[in-house]
């Protein structure tokens, strides 16, 4: 394993007045209301100017905030001289100038680069009320500039909506870039991919533990689809379930005390609960057909899963305590890959219609079904961001399979991975 660990301390100074900014802008749904935002390029405070640093910070922050769908960006070409001034105190900012450009919010900042050491000061201002909304100071190295920008994007969303963004999290996925299907991890904008496994076999179905410290996945390393767990920080890996037949679709419960998975040890795929040492604690399904692909409700009481017990594959929901099972999807002949949203109210899934797979969401009581993807190609395997704002999924609409992200209403879709290799089965980590 060629993985090395570096520890980086990002020190953020929460400014005292940021805690007072209780007034939040009311936003009910992405895209419904857009806030005019002026995002300036950060200026060098001390030390040399680095267009690489300021450019990269600006690019990452812009992309994250744009994906959120909450903002309308004031064209940088229209910026006046305040954009060139360093002053970050609200008394130093020329708010009328920004008002003139139609901006209601403003992001300004500075950076100081000393050798490899990088300090970034970032501020979000309320232009209308002429005050600071939030400020952060990030201390790290030049190579951490993307992480700092993602962290500030999370903070901006938190300040304006009350809910932190998911941009500092990571995406786990399967790629065959190395010549084998292995487990990879990348930033939520597709940058900085790193390979986590070197099984030189087939690695499948990654899923994060609810606290994001571990990944579960299936590998054929020992000539059988066995379930593994891997600690992300230490790289430590262990086989968790290796019964004859399938040991797939492992999903850790919100409590992290149990793992739902599909076993076919008795000749038919059924869903079971294991304890964290891999022993069977409970059998969840018992049908003649295929039962697979469990997804936990956020409260840990229910599982959504696929079953073809009534003929075609459909999404079902079962209560793990009472065993009461109901069918969720009624339309189409192939519904699959349920993903229970983090707010508990909606489930994303895929359906085949007209020979192609598309992504849908539905309320947990079966009402308000919405189709999110359209057009050519198959869009499959949706997974939620930890705040429920976004869905990550795989699609072959570009002719080859890659990983895409979109808002949970289906807008703003963009591709994250290159099409040089096959990337699929993404999972969004919890906040780190």
């Amino acid at each position, binding site marked *: 394993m060629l993985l090395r660990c570096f520890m*980086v301390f990002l020190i953020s100074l929460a*400014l005292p007045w940021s805690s007072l900014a209780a007034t939040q802008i009311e936003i009910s749904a992405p895209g419904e209301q857009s806030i005019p935002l002026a995002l300036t390029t950060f200026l060098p405070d001390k030390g040399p100017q680095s267009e690489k640093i300021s450019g990269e910070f600006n690019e990452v922050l812009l992309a994250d905030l744009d994906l959120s769908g909450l903002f309308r960006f004031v064209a940088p070409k229209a910026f006046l001289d305040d954009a060139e001034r360093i002053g970050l105190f609200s008394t130093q900012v020329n708010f009328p100038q920004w008002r003139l450009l139609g901006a209601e919010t403003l992001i300004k900042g500075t950076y100081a680069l000393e050798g490899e050491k990088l300090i970034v000061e970032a501020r979000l201002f309320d232009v209308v009320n002429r005050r600071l909304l939030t400020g952060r100071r990030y201390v790290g190295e030049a190579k951490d500039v993307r992480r700092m920008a993602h962290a500030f994007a999370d903070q901006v969303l938190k300040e304006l909506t009350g809910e932190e963004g998911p941009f500092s999290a990571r995406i786990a996925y399967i790629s065959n870039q190395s010549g084998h299907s292995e487990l990879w991890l990348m930033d939520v904008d597709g940058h900085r991919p790193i390979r986590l496994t070197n099984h030189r076999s087939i690695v499948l179905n990654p899923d994060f533990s609810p606290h994001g410290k571990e990944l579960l996945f299936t590998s054929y390393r020992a000539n059988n689809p066995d379930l593994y767990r891997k600690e992300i920080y230490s790289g430590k890996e262990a086989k968790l379930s290796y019964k004859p037949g399938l040991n797939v679709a492992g999903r850790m419960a919100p409590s992290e005390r149990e793992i739902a998975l599909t076993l076919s040890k008795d000749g038919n795929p059924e869903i079971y609960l294991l304890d964290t040492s891999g022993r069977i604690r409970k059998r969840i399904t018992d049908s003649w057909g295929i039962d697979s692909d469990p997804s936990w409700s956020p409260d840990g009481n229910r599982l959504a899963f696929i079953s073809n017990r009534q003929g075609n594959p459909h999404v079902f929901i079962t209560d793990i305590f009472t065993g009461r099972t109901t069918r969720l999807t009624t339309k189409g002949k192939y519904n699959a890959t349920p993903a229970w949203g983090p707010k508990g109210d909606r489930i994303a899934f895929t359906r085949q219609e007209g020979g192609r797979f598309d992504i849908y969401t539905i309320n947990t009581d079966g009402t308000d079904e919405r189709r999110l993807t359209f057009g050519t190609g198959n869009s499959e395997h949706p997974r939620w961001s930890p705040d429920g704002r976004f869905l990550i999924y795989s699609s072959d609409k570009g002719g080859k399979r890659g990983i895409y992200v979109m808002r949970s209403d289906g807008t703003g879709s963009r591709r994250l991975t290159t099409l040089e290799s096959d990337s699929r089965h993404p999972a969004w980590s919890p906040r780190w």
Partner: protein
Amino acid sequence: MKTMQMLKVVLVVLFLFGGLVGCAKTPPVSAVEDQAKVAQSDMSQQEEAKGVDDKSMQGEAVPSHEAMAGMQRIYFDFDQFTLSDEARSILAENAKYLQTMNDVQVVIEGHCDERGSDEYNLALGESRALAAKSYLVSLGISSSRLSVISYGEEKPLVNASNEDAWAQNRRAEFKAVK
């Protein structure tokens, strides 16, 4: 109000990737094992996909079992594991062959096309392999000679996304165990 600054320490552990995926490229070995007819279309598909996304390399990597010259693949319809008449007659031929090779153990591999849920396809591939196994058993082959493994959609025979490729990828294969 601006009296104190509260210090909040956010600790972030970064993984860096030292010396990138430097594994030496294994020469792509064709997934074609037998069956001239299938083999030819497979070759042509590989020509098209050359250097871009060669999944057949995966096939080579898994320490797998040898194809048996005397045993033919069977194919399935989308999302089905029932045996067609054609599949049954191929299995009957395979059974005859196995009766002449009494010492051979066989692994039946179940495969799917790339569409649909990975997790469901793993289950479906297993159902296909099990359907083939139980038919061979019904024809007098001892079940102790037959084991199954599902590869889901992981080892396509034809690495392309079209109806023809998918039809060839929905299959069960018969491999001798060493």
